[in-house]
């Protein structure tokens, strides 16, 4: 026998001689033969023996070959059972009838052994290919089912991390559509402690799992930081840095982030890579587009990242529309894109702003028609409203912040034994950084505290003369003397008092530092001539620049500065 393995072959023929000949030929080829004398018997033998290939005479009593072929194909189901018709019919119509009945080929009488052998070989090859295909198809189905199951679990986790936050507020409407279980778009929203709402719409390059992976750290960072009162720029930086670290080159997140203050009717917005957002003005129906002025999140290192935002004063009922490029790039059956012009047309035609949101969705869906949706389509509308009408959180926070101010004071004294070993600045700065709004000013505050404390310690407690520093030799003498005295000091103090009070537009931080020294004649100090001033002039000039004024009190051993800051949220 050759390369064809031993097959089981059914021979069905009512003519005894023909069947005898065929049986002998097939057996000679090394195959196992089962026989039938008519169509009905052929079906019975097929069911009992499950042969690999069927040779079927066309004309037989009881049930002819055509009927038997149909039944056998039906019984075979997915399996490929090649049926070869045996026929002395030679007209085209009869041969076509053989194939129509489900026959795969025919063999004319008188039988030719070589041809039959070739046909058996060729159909066995086809049968094996078909069986491989079935196995692989089943594997794919199985694999696909497992994938879907895994995605369902993963999506559950994902939805818990990237939950919709406060998107259920009464002034928010949103639409997210997705091609797969996962969405390349991410929409998160949360309330800040001050009652303003922070929202971020992001569109990751690609969709499915790779896109969803980036959405997880984005959402967890967002939901971790917003309720703690971090500013939008801090949060943007944190997310950008995380995505830059995590995501491979080429995967990034186009995003728009907004801080909407309902009490002050202000919008702070940052757009990196998303299409222009629209601010729809209720009064005149005009639109102010907010262009992307930044690169997407996860592209630049935090050093190069730009976090400057735009600010808009809004009126009640003004609406902000933010979208991913899925709307602009939605294609119709002809392959045209929806585009910004059509989007603007929706706004132009609008009669009632309340319906704008639905009109945009409908506009895109009608345009796409039966065309294929080839991107994620996301739309977000936020309406400016009174805090009380947004949600209960905004209402409460609004009461709290509008009617009361936060005020505190702390005193801190450094004792003589600590001067040489203890630097109070990091600790004080740490306390200040607990105030969210002050975080943005950390380096300024450090400069102010450092200059004032150094002056109090060196000139007040250690009584060093700043005139020494006027010459280069004096400079090193000064630090030698400083080293000596700080090791010997046994009495004296530096008292630091910091008070903070917020107001509607920001806050005021007062720093007062008193030392145990003799002070100096501060009356002689003129603001326009700092060099004539007895103390080391440059440090105080810097503090003065940062705080507006530096006030000396008493004999000059007490200094006070006011640092007032404006909240840009």
């Amino acid at each position: 026998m050759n390369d064809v393995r031993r097959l089981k072959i059914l021979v069905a023929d009512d003519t005894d001689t023909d069947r005898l000949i065929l049986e002998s030929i097939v057996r000679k080829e090394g195959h196992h033969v089962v026989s039938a004398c008519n169509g009905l018997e052929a079906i019975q033998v097929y069911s009992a023996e499950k042969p690999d290939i069927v040779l079927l005479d066309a004309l037989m009593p009881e049930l002819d070959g055509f009927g038997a072929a149909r039944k056998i194909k039906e019984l075979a189901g997915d399996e490929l059972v090649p049926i070869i018709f045996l026929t002395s019919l030679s007209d085209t119509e009869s041969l076509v009838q053989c194939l129509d009945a489900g026959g795969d080929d025919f063999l004319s009488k008188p039988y030719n052994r070589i041809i039959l052998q070739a046909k058996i070989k060729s159909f066995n090859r086809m049968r094996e290919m078909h069986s491989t295909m079935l196995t692989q198809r089943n594997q794919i189905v199985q694999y696909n089912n497992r994938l879907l199951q895994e995605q369902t679990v993963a999506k559950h986790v994902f939805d818990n991390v990237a939950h919709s936050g406060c998107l259920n507020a009464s002034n928010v409407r949103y639409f997210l559509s997705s091609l797969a279980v996962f969405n390349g778009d991410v929409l998160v929203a949360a309330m800040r402690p001050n009652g303003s709402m922070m929202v971020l719409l992001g569109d990751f390059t690609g969709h499915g799992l790779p896109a969803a992976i980036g959405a997880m750290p984005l959402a967890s960072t967002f939901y971790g930081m917003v309720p703690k009162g971090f500013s939008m720029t801090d949060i943007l930086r944190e997310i950008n840095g995380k995505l830059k670290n995590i995501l491979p080159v080429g995967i990034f997140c186009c995003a728009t982030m907004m801080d909407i203050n309902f009490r002050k009717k202000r919008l702070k917005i940052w757009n990196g890579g998303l299409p222009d957002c629209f601010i729809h003005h209720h009064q005149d129906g005009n639109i102010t587009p907010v262009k992307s002025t930044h690169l997407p999140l996860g592209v630049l290192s935090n050093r190069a990242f730009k976090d400057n935002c735009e600010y808009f004063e809004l009126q009640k009922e003004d609406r902000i529309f933010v979208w991913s490029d899925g709307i602009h790039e939605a294609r119709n059956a002809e392959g045209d894109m929806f585009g910004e012009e059509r989007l603007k047309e929706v706004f132009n035609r609008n009669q009632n702003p309340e319906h704008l949101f639905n009109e945009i969705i409908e506009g895109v869906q009608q345009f796409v028609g039966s065309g294929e949706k080839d991107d994620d389509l996301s739309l977000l509308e936020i309406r400016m409203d009174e805090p009380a009408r947004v949600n209960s959180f905004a209402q409460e926070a609004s009461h709290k912040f509008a009617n009361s101010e936060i005020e505190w004071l702390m005193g801190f004294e450094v004792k003589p034994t600590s001067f040489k070993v203890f630097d109070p600045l990091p600790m004080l700065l740490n306390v200040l950084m607990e105030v969210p709004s002050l975080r943005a000013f950390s380096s300024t505050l450090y400069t102010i505290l450092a200059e004032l404390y150094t002056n109090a310690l060196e000139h007040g407690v250690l009584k060093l003369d700043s005139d020494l520093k006027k010459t280069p030799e004096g400079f090193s003498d000064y630090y030698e003397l400083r080293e000596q005295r700080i090791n010997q000091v046994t009495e004296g103090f530096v008292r630091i008092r910091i008070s903070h009070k917020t107001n509607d537009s920001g806050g005021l931080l007062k720093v007062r530092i008193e030392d145990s020294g003799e002070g100096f004649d501060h009356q002689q100090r003129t603001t326009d001539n700092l060099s004539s001033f007895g103390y080391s002039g440059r440090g105080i000039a810097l503090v003065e620049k940062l705080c507006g004024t530096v006030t000396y009190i008493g004999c000059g051993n007490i200094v006070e500065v006011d640092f007032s800051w404006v909240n840009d949220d």
Partner: protein
Amino acid sequence: MEHLDYETLNTLKQVMEDDFALLIDTFVQDSTDRIATLRKVIQGSDADLIRRAAHSFKGSSSNVGALQLSALCAALEKKAFENNLDGLVADLDSIEQEFAQVLNLLRSFS
């Protein structure tokens, strides 16, 4: 036309080996039955029955290389198909004579 195609017969003999005699016996028995069947159906006027009987006989005789017999059956099949039922008795007589010839030649072949 030859009565027998010996090339076909030789191939068959090779293929069938010990069963060749059985094949010939079967053919003889089968053909005798078919001629009897034909004899019966040409009495009636069912052209399709005649056509089918002639068709089967054509197939089995061609398989053993009985060329002339197969051709005569084919002619009868064609007549029945065209619903031409004239002279069928004479046609069947020729078939029977040819079968007798084939029978003699087959006996001497094996």
